[in-house]
């Protein structure tokens, strides 16, 4: 295999991995993504910022669909001490994750 082919394959692999970095920006649709549940826009923005900064201190970001909506609060809670998250910050991260999931389905 020549060098160009190897570069193309490597580039393709990186692009496919990049698509796993799915942390979409907050939109107004996310605030009312689920009937009966309202997310504050500022909270969602803070949640996204904290998610991409604090969680990667220890591990790469997981795919948001890897765990169920029922599991996410417990997962974030279990690591909140390590990530120095205050209760409101922990809630903001969970709100962002759930809002993305509800908006996509």
């Amino acid at each position, binding site marked *: 295999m020549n060098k160009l082919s190897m570069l193309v394959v490597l580039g393709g692999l990186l692009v496919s991995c990049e698509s796993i*970095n799915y942390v979409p920006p907050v939109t107004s649709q996310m605030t009312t993504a689920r009937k009966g549940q309202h997310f504050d826009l500022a909270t969602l923005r803070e949640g996204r910022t904290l998610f991409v900064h604090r969680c990667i201190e220890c*591990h*790469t970001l997981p795919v948001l669909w890897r765990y169920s909506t029922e599991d996410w609060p417990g997962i974030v809670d279990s690591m909140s*001490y390590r*990530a*120095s998250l205050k209760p409101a910050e922990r809630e903001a991260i969970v709100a962002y994750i759930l809002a993305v999931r509800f908006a996509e389905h």
Partner: protein
Amino acid sequence: MKPTLRVVIFVGALLPVLSSFGGARHFTFLYEANTSAPGSLELENWVTWRHAVGPGRFNQVDFRHELEYGVTDKFQASIYLADWFYRSDPEHSGSTYSDTAIELIYNFTNPVVDPIGLSIYGELRAGDRLIELESKLISQKNFGPLILAYNATLESVWEGSDLAEREGEFSQALGASYEISPRVSAGMELLHEFVFPEWRDTAKIQNFFVGPNVSYRHRNWFVTITALAQATDTHGEPDFQLRTIFGIGL
């Protein structure tokens, strides 16, 4: 009161008001772009074994005890309480205190949501017969479970009894780490050094090291190990290096 005792009392007084963990390292010869959470404090212990064979053979074990503190979301500060080493070669052996240092890192962009994560790093080391200034550009990009990092480092060293010996060094390091599970990562590190004795390039010294790394993290601690072999044949440089960093959140 002795300075060491002051530091111990100061750190002891801080502990109750601080919480949690600065973060886990995926590499030992490279830095990552993200900084510690504000208010977090971590103790890192570094142990590096350097081994050279042949006429200039030696064994050296370097120790570093570092406290890392997250000042803001984008700024962290560290103190190397002590860098010291044990060295054994055909002529002599023994332990020597090397230096104490401060290290500052400022993060500009995020490796997940920005095209590339960038941070700058500054370090000042001072010892009995050593002053060193080091600056570093840290770049990183996360591709899902894959972390790619690149560091470019410039060092100025003054050492010897009257700090008369000068040396410059430019080094670049490239690392890849793949997260096998949230607790375990494995990858590779490459280190390429250019050494300029007396700030001149006449000696044409280049060293190239390459080897694997593995990292494990759990609760408030982590351990990361890298083994590097020298791919060049530079006399006086280690043929093999093994670095372990053990970090624990306080």
